[in-house]
């Protein structure tokens, strides 16, 4: 409101703006605002002067406004202003004013002329100018008319950081927010190709739907069938500047600009149609007369934007609806937090469907293909627990169970039962566990157990407590395994479980196995040695050096990586022929029991 009262309100009262519109048509000045703001507008001097030329009408929007800047609020407010006209909607032209918009004299008259000439949607580029700078230049002129060329002159001297950063032919290469490209043409003209122009006016032929989208992006498409917006390109005909605060510098960075980099930046945001329109419409903001022929700068600018537009034509259209949905959701969440609405629900699984799918399938960041290569290389060199290679520090633990897991993954899931406790790392190969061991023994699961003889393989990855009850598990589950099938019990302990407990669990499990008369039984216990623990810890040290991102750090990291992994490889090779551990060893790392069911015998 403070900004509006300074200059924009006065510019509306220029002879060629609201007074002119009031003479040409039955005009309503519709204030969509919270009650207190609306009261200030209607009782202000500017409001009362506007009221001499147009009917003042207030549409309350208190429930739209929350404590913060939410992108959807202006669009929802404009929508409310449109729908407030009821049945007259399709017989009304709507001009979208903004409280921070300074219009050149005659701008609204031009809009009216275009609309009466048949245009259904009008767009324009609003230059962004710094609030304090433009106020200093126009302050003495408040309340008076500002001719288009005079406004352009002041605007060119007051451009804000965002527009300055997007001047392509500037001395220093900066990058501003996505949306428009500017060229200075001599000292008195600015050429703009705008990929995201502002919607100035609309003559709807149908009512909008529910929550339609952003004003500039969606309104014309959903309220005007097949209407191609006309772009107001000559500042003599129409000029408007948006007053902004200094904070807009935050959106600027140093960067290299070329058609290729602009395509990259615009590709996710701009449709082919928007690119084509931007290439065709060159807005010219000029203080003096324009030459009859296009200037060299104008030709260069058009060619540049055409290259960008041609490249964009091959790109899949953006999904502005996702931006709208997210912005709308954030706004509704804030309303909920303020106690002004229910907690909304958004289908993020749908919004980010492809991302979630890619991430879940272990794909790497689409922006960093190198990451994919590193992950692939890591997978090839080391594997992934439990299917690891000879280079992996845990290879000794998983070498006995690896072939069983590979075989299990090749048969149908209904032929394999996977009981997994705790971290259940076999899930990396087998998917989520069917049951936990306590669920099996306590009967707390609600699914039917596998029928007798229905399984090829039973795999039990047990926690310490599950291992203690291994014999009971065998009794309960072994009958589900068919003749010639296999049962594997695995426990990864590292160095925590006391060997006495291991011996006890192993004894009772072996007794049960003997009673069940398996065709063949084997036990593998992997010892936990201090050297191996030391190597396991040491293999991560290289990361700290690499993260330093210095040449020396990279060299050190690479050396440590190579050395530690070579030692791990040697250790694993040495253990190929070494004695396996047993239950009397001081500590153990893992236990694997493999039981083959006789081909000729069924369990009772």
């Amino acid at each position: 409101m403070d900004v509006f009262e300074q200059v924009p309100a006065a510019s509306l009262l220029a002879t060629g703006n609201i007074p002119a519109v009031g003479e040409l048509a039955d005009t309503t000045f519709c204030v969509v605002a919270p009650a207190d703001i609306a009261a200030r507008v209607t009782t202000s001097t500017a409001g009362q002067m506007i009221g001499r030329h147009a009917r003042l009408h207030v549409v309350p929007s208190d429930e739209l406004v929350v404590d913060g800047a939410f992108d959807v609020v202006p669009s929802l407010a404009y929508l409310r202003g449109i729908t407030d006209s009821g049945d007259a909607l399709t017989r009304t032209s709507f001009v979208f004013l903004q409280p921070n918009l300074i219009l050149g004299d005659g701008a609204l008259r031009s809009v009216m002329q275009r609309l009466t000439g048949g245009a259904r949607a009008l767009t324009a580029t609003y230059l962004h100018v710094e609030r304090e700078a433009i106020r200093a230049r126009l302050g003495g002129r408040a309340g008076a008319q500002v001719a288009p060329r005079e406004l352009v002159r002041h605007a060119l001297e007051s451009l804000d950081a965002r527009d300055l950063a997007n001047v392509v032919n500037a001395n220093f290469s900066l990058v501003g927010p996505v949306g428009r490209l500017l060229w200075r043409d001599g000292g008195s003209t600015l050429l703009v190709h705008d990929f995201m122009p502002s919607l100035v006016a609309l003559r709807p032929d149908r009512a909008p739907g529910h929550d339609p989208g952003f004003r500039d992006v969606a309104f014309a498409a959903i309220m005007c069938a097949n209407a191609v917006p006309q772009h107001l390109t000559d500042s003599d005909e129409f000029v408007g500047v948006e007053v902004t605060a200094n904070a807009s510098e935050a959106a600027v960075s140093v960067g290299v600009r070329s058609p290729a980099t602009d395509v990259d930046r615009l590709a996710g945001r701009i449709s082919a149609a928007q690119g084509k329109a931007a290439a065709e419409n060159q807005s010219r903001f000029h203080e003096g007369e324009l030459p009859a022929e296009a200037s060299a700068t104008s030709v260069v600018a058009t060619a540049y934007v055409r290259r960008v537009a041609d490249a964009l034509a091959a790109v899949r259209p953006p999904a502005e609806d996702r931006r709208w949905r997210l912005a709308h959701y954030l706004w509704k969440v804030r309303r909920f937090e303020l106690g002004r609405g229910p907690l909304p629900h958004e289908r993020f699984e749908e919004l980010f469907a492809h991302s979630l799918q890619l991430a879940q399938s272990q794909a790497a960041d689409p922006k960093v293909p190198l990451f994919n290569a590193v992950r692939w290389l890591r997978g090839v060199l080391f594997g992934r627990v439990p299917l690891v290679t000879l280079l992996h520090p845990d290879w000794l633990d998983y070498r006995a169970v690896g072939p069983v897991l590979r075989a299990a993954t090749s048969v149908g899931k209904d032929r394999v039962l996977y009981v997994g406790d705790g971290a259940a790392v076999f899930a990396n190969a087998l998917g989520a566990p069917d049951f936990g061991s306590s669920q099996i023994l306590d009967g707390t699961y609600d699914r039917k157990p596998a029928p007798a003889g229905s399984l090829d393989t039973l795999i039990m990855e047990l926690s310490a407590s599950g291992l203690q009850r291994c014999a009971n598990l065998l009794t309960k589950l072994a009958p589900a395994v068919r003749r010639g099938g296999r049962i594997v019990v695995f426990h990864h302990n590292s160095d925590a479980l006391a060997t006495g407990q291991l011996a006890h669990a192993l004894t009772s499990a072996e007794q049960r196995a003997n009673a069940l008369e398996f065709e063949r039984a084997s036990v593998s216990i992997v010892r936990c040695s201090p050297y191996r623990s030391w190597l396991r810890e040491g293999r991560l040290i290289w990361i700290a050096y690499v993260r330093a991102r210095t040449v020396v750090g990279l060299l050190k990291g690479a050396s440590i990586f190579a050395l530690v992994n070579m030692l791990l490889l040697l250790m694993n090779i040495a253990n190929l022929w070494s004695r396996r551990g047993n239950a009397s060893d001081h500590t153990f790392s893992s236990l694997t029991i493999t039981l083959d069911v006789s081909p000729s015998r069924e369990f009772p």
Partner: protein
Amino acid sequence: MNVPPIHVISPVWGSAYIRCFLEVGLASLLSPGNLSGLAEPRNLLHVFTTEADRQTIESALIWRKAQEVLDCRIDIVGALNAQNPHATMSDCHRRAIALADGREAAMMFYNPDIVLADGGMSSLVRLLAQGKRAVQVIGLRLLKDEVVPMLLERHVRPDGSLGITPRELMAMAVRHLHPITMMHLHDVDDLDLMPQEIMWRVGEEGLIARCFHIHPILVYPRVRNAPFSTTVDDDYLRAACPDPAEEYMVTDSDEFCLCELSGMQRGVVGLPRTGNDIDIARWAWTWARPHHYEHLCRRIMLHTRGTTGPEWQAVAARSDAVVRDIFEHLVEFEDEARRRAAQVG
């Protein structure tokens, strides 16, 4: 709605954790606005510990005080997985869930290294009465060695319980953040970034947090014996309470406030900071799931005074802008993923 009994589930072992649990965790749980104020004999304090630690717990005065207030039960943990204590803890949780589900009780997952501000349990009971079945909170991690002496010196009551108001606890918290918590701060340059939670300081008055990950402190399951893959923090909540309408996220520390206490030596490796929110978006792209995005959209106010001042509004607006920025990057990633999928197709 009738309020179900609450099982407070605490796996705890090792002398350091036992001591912290008895002196701080359990003591704060027994403050007047917490369990001592709830005259509900069906409530249960369900502790999992080792045989070696059992006697220490049972001989503690605060344990006897707990027995006066509610039913107390100790179950023995089998062998400990020293390499992966979370796996052992999850085993305990599974056993506790089975018991609680059998009694149709709500469960409060209460780690031993927690201090709970007074009134938190009352809030949970009120939320249960409103029909909520899953209550989620964030807990700031504080420096144990600095905070515990202050808690014991200033806030222990004559009956042995530990009473501290949410605002007193937050005042202590903002001065004694653990380095891991500092890694969550958005505007800190010197530390790695932990993007699971993103926080901003509001002077000395508190913090605003935007989080992907939050802790399910209370669950009253719709689905009995719901399975979970790793820890209850991960996928248990949605498995046990599939209806998001029955979830409740605590966003104001006045309503419920707890902090975790960790030693200085505890550390993690985060992401290198580049000062660009695209790093957070990249992390989220890989690791976040739909319900994490819902969490991120909420402002969590952790405060020592009111939150309506201009500084709070400015920081809240900053957090909103960062969240918008993250989503903007995620939309770009999604557009790119769709383009690639179309090309492959």
